[in-house]
């Protein structure tokens, strides 16, 4: 975490000290998360259309198709990394899913349950560290967790597949793997890039580019 944090003062009057950063969402948090989510929903829509072709790449062994399914998970982690408030992962993933459904998605209304469950996976990782760690390994863990809960949804909660046990395990493992890379590494890189471009001014992630890449194995100060 940042070691150069100044004493926090806030409020209009002189010197009213605020406690540690608030978990309440500001208007900026909500609007930025919404725009990210809606834009992601449109990317889903485009990706859904191209997936009709890309999906055919796996025609010889469909269970590994989830190797590219991380594309459907990135809003959860991106939202959490940029906003850094409880619920960001679930909100961004669900709104993105809802927008893709509004535009027409091959999964119809079931995207809402997938969106919630995928967001939940990422959310749980950041909840586990009390929304204090946003380094690479947690981003990847969140992406993988999102793939895991997504896979569980596909197979047991709102089943969209009817695979044999081995195929089911392969399917879910590839989903988590894809989540860690496409929805873990890429959003993490994007967030650092955005912070370096100083466009995250009003958000808690504005110093993301100056934070250490990894937080495990380091002395916390």
């Amino acid at each position, binding site marked *: 975490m940042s070691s*150069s*944090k*100044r004493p926090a*003062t*806030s*409020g*209009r*009057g*002189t*010197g009213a000290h*605020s406690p540690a950063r*608030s978990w309440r*969402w500001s*208007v*900026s948090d*909500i*609007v*930025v*998360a919404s*725009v*990210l989510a*809606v*834009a992601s929903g*449109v990317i889903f829509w485009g990706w859904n*259309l191209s*997936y*009709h072709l890309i999906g*055919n790449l*796996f025609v010889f*062994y*469909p*269970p590994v198709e989830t190797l590219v399914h991380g594309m459907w998970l990135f809003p959860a982690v991106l939202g959490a990394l*940029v906003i850094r408030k409880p619920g960001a992962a679930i909100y961004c993933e669900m709104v993105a899913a809802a*927008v893709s*459904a*509004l*535009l*027409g998605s*091959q*999964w*119809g*209304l*079931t995207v809402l349950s997938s969106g919630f469950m995928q967001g939940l996976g990422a959310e749980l990782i950041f909840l586990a560290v009390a929304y204090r760690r946003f380094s690479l390994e947690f981003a990847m863990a969140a992406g993988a967790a999102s793939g895991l809960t997504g896979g569980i949804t596909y197979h047991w909660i709102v*089943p*969209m*597949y*009817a*695979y*044999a046990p081995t*195929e089911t395990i392969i*399917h879910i493992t590839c989903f988590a793997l894809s989540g860690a890379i496409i929805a873990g590494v890429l959003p993490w890189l*994007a967030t650092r*890039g955005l912070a*370096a*471009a*100083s*466009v995250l*001014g*009003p958000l808690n992630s504005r*110093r993301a580019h100056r934070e250490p890449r990894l937080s495990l194995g380091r002395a916390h100060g």
Partner: protein
Amino acid sequence: MGERVDAGAGDLAGTPVPEPGSATRAHPARGVAVTAQRWSWTHAERERAAVAGLDLQISPGEKVLLAGPSGAGKSTLLHALAAVLHDDEAEVHGRLLLDGVDPEQARGRAGLMQQDPESQVVLSRIGDDVAFSAENLAVPREQIWQRVRAALTDVGLHSFDLDHPSAKLSGGQKQRLALAGILAMRPGLLLLDEPTANLDPEGVRQVRDAVLAAAEATGATVILVEHRLEVWAEHMDTLLVLETGGGIRRSSPAAEIFTDAALREELAGMGLWVPGRDPLQDLPVWRGGTERQDWTERLGGTGRKQAEPLLLAEGLAVGRHSPKPGWRRAQPAPPTVKDLDLVIRRGQTLGITGANGAGKSTLLLTLAGLLPAHAGSVSATAELKGAGALLAEDPHKWRSADLVARIGVVFQEPEHQFVRSTVREELALGAQQAEVPGTTDPLFDEQQIDDRVARLLERLGLTELAEANPFTLSGGEKRRLSVGTVLSAGPEVLMLDEPTFGQDARTFAELISLLREHVDSGGTVLAVTHDAAFLRGLHASEHQVRREEPVTPDEQRGGERSDPPGGELFGPERSLSWLGRRNALAKLIAVFLITAALVMTIDAVSSGVVILASLALLPLAGIRPGGFLRRVWPFAAGAVVAAWGTAIAAEESGRVLADLGFTTISEGSITLGLALGARAFAIVLPSVIVFSTTDPTDLADSLAQQLRLPARFVLSALAAMRLLGLLAEHWRTIGHARRARGVGAHGGLTARMRGTASQAFGLLVQAIRMATRLAVTMESRGFGAGPRSWARPARFSAADLPVILGGAGIGALAVTAAVLAGAWNFVWT
């Protein structure tokens, strides 16, 4: 709801346009007194205060022009007064008061207008957009529409229907709409942060007149920040000049701007446009360029040598969208410019002018080889191609490397062009990309590239900032860098899109000076512009383009033609079908019930029932079967893929039809696959039907009012949806800019993926910038502060009952049919 709104708009349509100043509404004529007492603000992480020790007293109704060097904290002060400056870690001292109260406690008393018209609009219909601020202040519903109409009248937009799409307004009209939204709060203080900087001259006049009329009618206090003093100075009372690092350098009557020579020089030194002072007066005398007369003479062949042509356009037609029909568009998009003939000659300075929406930018991109011509041709002469280069005639067919060394394009938004993480790398990129004509050998070696970069850094005054991230530069620095990135490859022709838009006088003069040097060293300049001073500065000839399409009624009322952003995805028109008029939540419940029935079982019978029912219901939704099939066929293809996947990967059962070694295809797995495929297709249909007849605004109203989802989130998501079309526009332009800079358009898979990643990052930056400005707009209109009212009630009516019952009925029918047919295959076993 819709009926009521329309009736109101109808009444207004007949009202004559009020003269500025005559807009006497029922506003409380009361301005706010503004006080600062030793007020300081330091952003988190900054050493220096944005504003320090400010003491200020502004009387009610006073009109203040706020000036100061860049970085003196003008915007910080406006944002603090509008109570939109939040930073948990900022240091604040002293007090800032509106009529003696903290701005945070005076929500609705101050309204803020920012520079970028796009982020000043919140909702997709003008009536809703104005109502938004009144709703946020919990104004009772009966009064809201009254306030909306009054505000629209005050800003001269009353001739539009309340349902008119805000996206179809011109920049000036959008700013007036923003003003109407502010006026609907009945504020006593108007905070204007460069409100006319991004507008064309006509828009500037409209917005200024509307602001002055509103201030006159309401007695509101006005605090204005603006570069172009000539537009505003004579109408303001007081000039306040802030000092960098804190305090007020000067406070005097605004009229002194015209009379006090020392003050005028001081203001010019801050980059302001001082009335009657030419920012180019400090530049050396210049004799280059093609003044119109001179050029005609040359064309007339009066004995002087005629310059060589570089680029020819013959019978050219251009359009923003591909001339090929799209999958969602039956008709190819019509061109915006037709039958254009143009010769661009060496050493020429040419301005392309014409009304908004006439297709000037599109023309520029087409001439620059970034867009294909709709008809006719663009051809480069041997002079431009260079000796020995075996290039195609049409620049659009060139590789990026050939393009960057010949035609450089400077985009209106400098950030669209940035692809590297430091200023130095940005400037090196063009030189690295350039290749020796006809080969793939680099044109410059390492040493030459370093020299070019060093010279450019020096010339652009960016040496100190060589390692800075381009996105963190000031507006003027970004503009200079964007020109520098293009000059780096040494192109002969420079094409610029509105290069002086929103720039201060100093940047303007620097830009002119750079372009004059380019011409002096044998270069050619072509610019799309509204700026007469720019054309004069370059002694440019002028080519006016006229739009081809007939004028629509909207435009006769003063609107700008532009494709409604988002129009392709979410049209502003509500579906008028039976289903379209039903409550959004009722429709959502119906789809939910049908989907739930389908999810419970994997069988072809229940899916078949839903598919048939959906097709039978098309007339209720006003959807023609042909259009529907065009829309859903990709989903059918997806269903086939799902069927195949299951056939391969499902547990073996029944007779084995094929053994692939690692897996088998059996009778059982095929049956299961077919059932899953049918179900996948059936799940799509009801949601496509319902969502294509549901307006996002209505859905949001229902979700927030009936389902009680948190209004802050629902409305933000709705406002974000309005930005979709703009984001799509940015995506396209950023893509063009990538090609213009030679990134990702060609090469192997890795290069393309890097190009796409760079384009996606560029879009992300723009998305967050827009979101941040939009958040300020929304918050300054009272959003998120407390309980709100709703201008349009969302509730069930008797006619919505059949929708819910219909959904339940179809779901039940599907389940019953599956059970009776013995196909029922419950999933949670």
